């Protein structure tokens, strides 16, 4: 009498077993590609601090955030009435009132200049308006001259909170600028400010390369009627000869540990890749054969070097070990591929390739797959160089007439010129972060 239902139950429980853990899943694809809107209310200048200081900070950080490529800045001009008058740091309790701003994040802060006018305190807070919570807050203290550096540190911090990796707003770029006769070297901040001339020899100065410790630049100069290799400190002081073998001493590239320099030398009547120790020992020849070898660049682990060789008939990118062995060809598309630059993340190489009669910037995986073209349109784009976090690429482009240094995200997004100066710029080199 009782058996049947019990048996029934037993049977049923068997049926239930296979469907034990069947959670429903929704597949969502095709996100909209939109920058994260970040609200930036006016920066507050506390007490007797001149409002111009707050305004200056605002300008720098607003530019940094849109330069980073992650954000769309909603500045105070574009806020609806009650909000656009707001200054400084809102209280977490009142975050809801920022709803009408359209922002997902909010960055606000204040600055206080000390009575002497030489030191300042910079304070900021970052809020998540979607989750209505506080994400981060910091205070920086320092000399007024260090203002830009402090603001850039702050921008780096915002990028870190959102992406898990610090930004590169404290970095600088070195590049060459054409003069009446020849070229001189300059250094500018990532946002194009503070451009400073670091060579003043009226000669032809080429191919600057930052040392990994950010202290000096290696470059080639024709001062002695030969393309010799020189070093100069980043402030332009201590200009010294480093290598002056007959023929080329050109296109220097520092190893990631700063102990050697790979370069082009022409001692054997043609250009080959050689290694020089930073303390002057060497040079050791790495490439052999009948081709012309150029433009070495190190892998971030210091074990391999990518370079240009026309041993196959046309210039192509090759990879070899740092001792010159295990040479293999990387590029096969196109018949002119030069200027390799190895990403600090290690997985991709950027280079300049001729396509459709123009020079464009490409990136490619280490195994030769995944070729991606990053520039198009008019003009020639050359000399790609990665940022130290591997998220940006600097290059030169004459799309607007005269050649300028441009920066862009590593996927080609947000291409913009570095400076607004008129000179013809070329050969960018990207420093590491300045603390």
């Amino acid at each position, binding site marked *: 009498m009782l058996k049947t239902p019990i048996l029934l139950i037993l049977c049923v429980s068997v049926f239930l077993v296979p469907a034990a853990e069947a959670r429903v899943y929704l597949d969502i694809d095709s996100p909209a590609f939109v920058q994260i809107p970040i609200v930036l209310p006016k920066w507050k200048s506390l007490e007797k601090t001149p409002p111009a200081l707050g305004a200056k900070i605002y300008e720098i950080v607003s530019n940094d955030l849109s330069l980073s490529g992650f954000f769309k800045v909603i500045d105070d001009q574009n806020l609806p009435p009650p909000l656009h008058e707001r200054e400084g740091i809102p209280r977490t309790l009142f975050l809801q009132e920022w709803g009408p701003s359209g922002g997902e994040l909010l960055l606000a802060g204040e600055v206080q200049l000390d009575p002497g006018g030489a030191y300042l305190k910079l304070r900021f807070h970052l809020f998540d308006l979607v989750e209505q919570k506080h994400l981060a807050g910091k205070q920086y203290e320092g000399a007024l001259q260090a203002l830009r550096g402090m603001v850039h540190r702050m921008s780096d911090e915002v990028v870190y909170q959102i992406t898990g990796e610090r930004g590169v707003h404290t970095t600088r770029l070195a590049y060459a600028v054409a003069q009446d006769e020849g070229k001189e070297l300059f250094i500018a901040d990532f946002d194009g400010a503070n451009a400073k001339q670091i060579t003043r020899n*009226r*000669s032809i100065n080429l191919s600057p390369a930052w040392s990994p410790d950010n202290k000096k630049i290696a470059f080639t100069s024709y001062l002695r009627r030969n393309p010799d290799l020189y070093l100069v400190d980043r402030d332009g002081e201590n200009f010294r000869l480093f290598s002056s073998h007959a023929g*080329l001493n050109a*296109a220097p590239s520092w190893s990631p540990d700063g102990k050697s320099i790979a370069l*082009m030398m022409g001692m054997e009547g*043609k*250009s080959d890749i050689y290694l020089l120790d930073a303390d002057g020992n060497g040079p050791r020849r790495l490439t052999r054969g009948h081709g*012309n070898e150029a433009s070495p660049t190190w892998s971030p682990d210091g074990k391999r070097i990518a370079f240009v060789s026309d041993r196959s008939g046309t210039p192509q990118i090759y990879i070899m070990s740092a001792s010159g062995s295990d040479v293999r060809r990387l590029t096969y598309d196109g018949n002119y591929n030069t200027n390799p630059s190895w990403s600090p993340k290690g997985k991709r190489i950027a280079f300049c390739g001729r396509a459709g009669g123009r020079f464009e910037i490409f990136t490619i995986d280490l195994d030769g797959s995944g070729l991606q073209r990053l520039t198009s349109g008019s003009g020639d784009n050359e000399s790609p160089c990665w940022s130290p976090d591997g998220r940006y690429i600097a290059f030169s482009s004459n799309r607007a007439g005269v050649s300028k240094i441009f920066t862009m995200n590593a996927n080609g997004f947000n291409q913009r010129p570095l400076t607004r100066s008129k000179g013809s710029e070329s050969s960018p080199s990207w420093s590491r972060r300045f603390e």
Partner: protein
Amino acid sequence: MLRKSLCILVLMLCLGLIVAGCPKKTVMKDEPSVTKEEAARIEAQKALERAEAEKAAKEAREKDSAGLKEEEARKALQKEFEKSLTARKQPGIEGEIFESAMLKDVYFDYDRYEIRPQDAEILKDNADLLKRFPKVKVQIEGHCDERGTIEYNLALGERRAGSARDYLLSLGISPDRVSIISYGEERQVDPGHDEEAWSKNRRAHTIIVSK
């Protein structure tokens, strides 16, 4: 008495010696017995000798004048050469150098560094000039047009200068007289952006570093 006659004897001996030392008058008398044929032959021979003498004299004169001409020509060339030299001092590059229009540039095809036949002739002329002025030392500059990347063009320019140098060496110029330098695309002579400008920029240019 005896002494007197001795003196007269000595005097007469001295006179005799003196007379004997005087130029003798030689009276040449043609052999009246020479035949007419012989006379003609001798005459012809003489004429021939005269002609030859004249010829030799003429040649000697010519030789002299030619040597003079050459000397003149050489001097003229030297003058021309000296005149053609423009001293150049660039602020950013050490050393004073000279350029001469008599040392002509040679040109290259796009992305190539071989010497073309028409350029070989120019290099020959340059070599000849160098042979004439054995003290002159030169530097060959390799240049590229503005296209292509800066660093690879340094390598290409090095090759172009090297090719021109090799050719001069093959014509007998001593290696220590010719050095090379690559300027890549850094020194354009024509700032244009078309093939006409580019072909002018792809060149090997020779300058004089010491004379």
